[in-house]
């Protein structure tokens, strides 16, 4: 932890992960600072989503170090030793990390408001009224206050993803993870979701975004990491990585998706 910067919220050192014989992450070094919008781009199957899912323990890692704020992911400290984290420790940590999924994953049997307040009510044990007040405020922020009583099936994909973002930020997390948040949307609905994300960046929310929206990364990103073959091939500002990529693989990839 000696070379760990005070402002680092996420810091990975030599992170590896394999599914059986398939090595997905082959030693990833990457840091995310407080209030930074960090974009992760790269070809499909390069391990971007796996990397993101390791941060909130939806995926375990095999080797290397993964720090979030002051703890080692998947472990808890007793005395001087790190032990496997108990389920409720992991759960409490997850509550401090928001996550937005490619396929929204809203709870279909709950209204938009109930989805947003689910964590407040069921995890943070807030009263219904307190949670509802906060929930309405959040729905207003994503422009969906008038749809508070609608069920996910009655909302468009873009609206569902905005509700999902409201749910992810409900508990005031220290970081939000976006796993290809616009990949499952019809093209005309992408803009409304990006607009909400842009607002979050302006408010200084720390975020890690896996996406194929290169233009958006260029516009709002503080850092861009290009992942290829389970490693970070190139990191830097959007200008450095996207406009003046030093690696052939990066320019090849950018040329293909533009």
């Amino acid at each position, binding site marked *: 932890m000696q070379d760990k910067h005070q402002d680092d919220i996420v810091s990975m050192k030599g992170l590896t992960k394999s599914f059986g014989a398939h090595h997905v992450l082959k030693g990833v070094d990457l840091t995310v600072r407080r209030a930074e919008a960090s974009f992760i781009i790269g070809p499909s199957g390069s391990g971007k989503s796996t990397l993101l899912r390791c941060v*909130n323990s*939806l995926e375990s890692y095999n080797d290397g170090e993964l720090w979030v704020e002051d703890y080692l992911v998947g472990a808890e400290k007793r005395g001087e030793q790190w032990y496997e984290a108990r*389920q*409720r420790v992991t*759960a*409490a940590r*997850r*509550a*401090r*990390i*928001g*996550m937005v*999924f490619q*396929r929204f*994953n*809203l*709870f*279909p*049997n*709950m*209204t938009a408001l109930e989805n947003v307040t*689910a*964590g407040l009510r*069921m*995890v*943070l044990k807030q009263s219904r009224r307190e949670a509802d007040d906060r929930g309405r405020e959040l729905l207003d922020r994503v422009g969906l206050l008038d749809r508070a009583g*609608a*069920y*996910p*099936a*009655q909302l468009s994909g873009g609206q569902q993803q905005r509700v999902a973002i409201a*749910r*992810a930020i*409900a*508990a005031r997390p220290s970081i939000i993870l976006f796993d290809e948040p616009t990949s499952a949307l019809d093209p005309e609905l992408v803009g409304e979701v990006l607009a909400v994300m842009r607002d979050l960046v302006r408010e200084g929310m720390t975020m890690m975004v896996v996406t194929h929206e290169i233009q958006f990364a260029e516009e709002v990103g503080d850092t861009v990491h290009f992942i290829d073959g389970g490693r970070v091939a190139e990191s830097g500002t959007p200008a450095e990585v996207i406009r003046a990529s030093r690696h052939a693989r990066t320019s090849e990839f950018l040329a293909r998706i533009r």
Partner: protein
Amino acid sequence: MNSVNSANTSLRIHRRLGPRIANAALAVLAMVIVLGMAQIVIGSGRIRWNIIVDYLFAPAVLNGVAMTLMLTLVSLLGSMVLGTVLAAMRISRNRVLETIAAGYVWFFRGTPVLVQVVFWFNLGLFLPQISIAGHSFPINSLITPTTAALLGLLLNVSAFMCEVIRGGLIAVDNGQSEAALSIGMTPTQALLRIVLPQAIRVIVPAAGNLAIDLLKATSLVYVIGTREILGTTQSIASQTFYVIEMLIVASLWYLFLVSIASFGQSRLEVYLARGLSTASRELPRPNLG
């Protein structure tokens, strides 16, 4: 054939009579066959309808109905508990628990319920007594036609219920539990508060069919002398020789009970389907009244 209607600028599509005549002919034919069969049964003059009316609500028959209901309800409720435990074992990461539950399902689903009922009834033949906590009980005092029937039905239907519940849990998209975990729920909370309520929707139709099958399967236990609907009506028939009439009495009761069960099941499904329609209409009120 389409032709342009001169009085109207739109195209007019003329009806064809052929398919309609064929449909009507088929309907008439089907009705003739059904009425003919009804005539054979009812018109035979051999069925004493007044006997059916006399026995439909006879105290002995009503006792049989009560016994059938008791066997069904106790087996059903018991199977929900045992089935949930077995399903949880089957999806657990503990290989021993998983194998035991799989073995249970394999055995109890793989042998006929009638064989199981007769087996439990004859348990005393190889296990004359059982010791629990230092006390010894003779099996023959524990195994009566009723307890043997209950054991056989409950253990059998639990195997099916386990599969129904497991199917429901698997049917819920994995993204649901991931979303639940991501907002800070523990795995147990995610299962109970997010996955299970959604699984219920898949479980209810299948469990309803299971309940209806079970209701009728209770008739099998009459072979060990349990006094349920078929048992009581058969014993009346053997004393009075009203064989067909008593079978009709039994059938009427089964039909009545199954109809009530089906009605309850469909109301429950409507209630559970709330939030699933894409229409932004007023949603069904969450009460069953």
